[in-house]
């Protein structure tokens, strides 16, 4: 039984079992077993180079594990096509990498890959939800860093993911924009019971936002539990 099962309740949304990845004979992620529960915000914390982002990239199979696997709702994630898996496990990265053009085009992108056309009112609703009402026709080049990251969130949410992976989503933002995006993510998780796994190097942010925290060092999971237990008060 994992530490998570001992300390948390609820159904497991995502489970990693002995997950590992070696690159050119160097182990970047080593033997990670953890559970992520439905509706929780799990923080992955550690110093630079500790393997946080490498672990996150294994969770939506952007990189291939060299050992172990991931279970999504109890099923080995290799049973899903990569596209289906990535629709269900969305991702927001440190840099938003918005596609050239209008905000609406970015929000439409994910559903359009499956041949779905997102209605204008759905786009407007999503943008309103991320605090950008009336931004549909705006060119992405005219957006601030904080606004771009909000569009990136709306774009990921348009796919209706069950789990959202957040890789340092506020680290490229100024303090004011950072607090805004942080509050937005917290309200999204609270309002929609979205399951989130967030990588952050900022321990204070992890304390503020996360239900539980996994502390990584040199590719290994060294501590796992409530933020106050792992990171101190």
């Amino acid at each position: 039984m994992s530490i998570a099962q001992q300390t948390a309740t609820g159904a497991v949304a995502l489970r990693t079992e002995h997950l590992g990845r070696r690159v050119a004979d160097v182990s970047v992620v080593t033997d990670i077993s953890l559970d992520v529960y439905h509706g929780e915000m799990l923080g992955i914390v550690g110093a630079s180079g500790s393997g946080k982002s490498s672990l996150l990239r294994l969770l939506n199979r952007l990189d291939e594990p060299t050992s172990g696997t991931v279970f999504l709702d109890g099923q080995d994630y290799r049973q899903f096509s990569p596209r289906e898996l990535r629709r269900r496990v969305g991702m927001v990265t440190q840099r938003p990498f918005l596609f050239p053009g209008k905000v609406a085009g970015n929000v439409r992108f994910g559903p359009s890959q499956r041949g779905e056309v997102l209605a204008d009112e759905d786009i407007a609703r999503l943008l309103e939800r991320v605090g950008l009402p009336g931004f549909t026709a705006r060119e992405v080049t005219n957006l601030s860093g904080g606004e771009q990251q909000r569009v990136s969130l709306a774009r990921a949410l348009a796919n209706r993911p069950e789990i959202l992976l957040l890789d340092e989503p506020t680290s490229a933002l100024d303090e004011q924009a950072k607090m805004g995006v942080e509050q937005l993510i917290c309200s999204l998780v609270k309002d929609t019971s979205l399951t989130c796994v967030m990588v952050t190097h900022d321990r204070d942010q992890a304390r503020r936002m996360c239900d539980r925290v996994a502390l990584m060092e040199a590719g290994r999971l060294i501590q796992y539990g409530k933020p106050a237990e792992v990171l101190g008060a």
Partner: protein
Amino acid sequence: MLKSLFHTQLTLGFAQAGIASVLALAVVLLARRRNIHLESDAAIALLRGIVQIVAVGSILALLLKSPRWTSVFLLTGMVLAAGSISARRAKNIPGARKVSTYSIAAGAGLVTAIMTWAGVIDTAITSLIPVGSMIIANAMNTNGLALNRFRSEVLAHAGEIETALALGAAPEHTVASYAESSIHASLIPAIDNLRSLGIVWIPGLMTGMLLSGADPLYAAIYQFVVIAMILASSGLTSLLSTMMIRNHAFSPAEQLVLKSSG
């Protein structure tokens, strides 16, 4: 001046090659003064060039006495070598050599075969080998340019590509615009050659035909035919190689494997 010093065609040829190489090396030394270091690349390329062309000349001398079908083997050898050379421009892309060889074989092979069948290229070894080699060499250059551009574009836009993958996009869709720009960029020299034909340059084939006494107008038109064939084979090669290589940039699990560190 050289003709008075060297009395056989062969010694004269080597002396002329020496002077051309000295001139090329002088430019390399000039570049060095501007901190552009091409010394070893240029020296090796010049040495390889003379050895290879003398070897081909020797083989041609032998082949001239052989049956016509032997040219097929020589052209096939050229395609294999061209595939290997231009694949180096696609460093880190798995399968680049195979993709390059197939693309050059299809692009150059198809155009050469059609034009030979139509009687545009004579089946005599003295015609088929030089024209065929020109088509293969240009297909090789275009292929190298296309793969190199594609590789650079993918490396420069890895973030955008992985973002699109993470949103559930198909791998070929994530690199479609980069593949298009690679094809376009690779064909610029071939298009410019056609555009500037006769105005900026008079290509070697036409010069050779004129020297051997062909009608100047026919030599000019035939030169256009060759450059147009080169554009056709280069275009087909570039199109095929870019289409094939984009699949090699991803793993079967739709992960971007072409990375700057890889």
